[in-house]
C-alpha cells in the first residue's frame, strides 16, 4: 500500500490495515461448553467476535488478545493460549 503525506487515506482504511498483529495470546473457543449467551460478543472491546454457522468465533485480523472474552465467559469456554508466530 502506498502511503500519502499526512496519513491521508480513503475512508474505511482498517479494512486493509489489520490491527491484530500485536496479539500475544489468542482466544480458543470450546464450542462444547458454549451456551450461546453472547457475553463474549457483547464485551469484546474490538467488536470482533461474531457468529459463524451458529458458533462464536473471533476475527483474528483484529483481535488484540486482551482476554476480556475469556474473563466474561460464565462457562469458562474461552482459553487464552500463547500464540507463537
Amino acid at each position: 500500500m502506498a502511503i500519502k503525506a499526512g496519513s491521508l487515506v480513503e475512508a474505511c482504511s482498517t479494512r486493509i490495515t489489520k490491527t491484530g498483529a500485536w496479539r500475544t495470546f489468542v482466544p480458543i473457543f470450546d464450542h462444547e461448553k458454549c451456551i450461546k449467551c453472547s457475553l463474549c460478543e457483547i464485551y469484546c472491546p474490538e467488536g470482533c467476535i461474531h457468529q459463524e454457522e451458529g458458533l462464536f468465533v473471533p476475527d483474528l485480523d483484529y483481535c488484540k488478545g486482551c482476554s476480556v472474552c475469556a474473563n466474561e465467559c460464565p462457562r469458562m469456554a474461552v482459553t487464552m493460549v500463547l500464540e507463537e508466530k
Partner: protein
Amino acid sequence: MSEKTANRKVVEGSYAVAHAVMCCRPDVISAYPITPQTHIVENLSQMVADGELDSEFLTVDSEFSALSVLIGSSACGARTYSSTTSQGLALMYEVLYNVSGMRIPVVMNVANRALGAPLNIWNDQQDAMGARDAGWLQIYVEDVQEAVDATLQAYKIAEDAQIRTPIMVCMDGFILTHVYEPVELLDKEKAREFLPDYKPADILDPAHPKTFGAFADPSTYTEFRYQQFEAQLKALDKIEKVAREFEETFGRYYGGLLDSYFVEDAEIVIVTLGSVIGTIKDAIDAMRSEGKKVGLLKVRSYRPFPVQALRKALKDASVIAVIEKDVAIGGEAGLVTDLKASLYNSNIRMPIIGFTAGLGGRDITIKDIRKIVAKAEAARKSIETEFQFLDLRTEIL
C-alpha cells in the same frame, strides 16, 4: 510620498502582524490570549468584528483547543491562523505533532517568551526552541517589518503542495510585539496576487470520505516521518525562492535561510537569531570603525536547519560565537549544538563557543556583545569555556 512608502505607518508590532494576517485572508482563526501575544489576536478579533476581515474567529478554552480547531478547519480546506507564546505553546505540545504529522499548513506567530517556573512574562526563546523537533518549520525574525513580511511568506511556504508543513514565525515578545516603529503595511491587493486562495488537493468532504491522520502501525510509521523529513528539506529551496519572489513584488529581502552582515572578510563571526541582531549590528559598526573584523550571521530558518548554507557562509571564519536566548538544560543550547553538528562532517574547523543570554527578558547590550567578541578572540588560541551563561550574577548565587 513615493509608492514604496505609501503604506508606511508608525504602529505597534502586534497590529502590524495582525494587519499582515488580514492580508493573508485566513478562513479560520483560533487562539487563546496570553501575554505578550494578546494584542495580535485582539486586533484580529476587532478586524473580524468590524467586518474588515471575513474570517471565523473561534474563541476557545485553551491553546490545546485553539490548535485542535485549526486541524479540523484546515482539513476541510480552510486557510488557518493562530498565535501563542510560552506556556500556551507548551500546552499545544501534543497538538503540534498532530498538526505537522497530518501535514496541516497552519501559520502561527510565536511571540517568544520565557517559560515558568520561575514565572516570567518577558522575552526569550526557550518556548519555540523547545518545539524545534515537532515537525514545524521555524522562521525567526529580526524586526517588525520582517515579522509582517515573513507572515505573508509563511503561508506561501507552508501551503506549497510539496511541503504542506505548519510554520511558526517567531518574533521576540514585547521587543517586537509591543514596540511602535515605522512599518510598511502590506497592500491587500498585492498580497492577494502574491498569495492566491488556498486550494488543497485533499480535503475532508462527506461526499468523498477520507481519513486524515490514520493509524499507522510499525510497518508504515517510519515512512510517514520520512515524508515529513523530506518535506522540510524541500522547504530549504522554497524558503529562499519565496523570499526572492517577495522581493520582486514588495522590494524587501532579509535573506532566505540566512542573512549576513560583514561576514565576507570577518575573522570573528557572531551567529544568532531574533531581535538581538539590531544590537549586534550596532556593536559591529562600532567595532569595525576600530578595525576589528567582526561579522554577523543571522539564522532566519532554524527549521529546516540550513546546513549547506551555513557551511558556505562560515567556511572562512576563524572563530565563531553563538549567542541565543535559550538553554538546553543538561546540554548546551539549540543553535550552538546544531551549528557544531552541521560542521562536524565537513572540513571546516574553527573554535565555536556558545552563550546563553537574555533569558527571562534580561537586556543584551552593546557592552555584552563586545564581551562576547573579546571571549571569541581569546578562544582562537584556546577555548576556556565552551558554553556559558553571559553576565551571570554570581553575587546573588
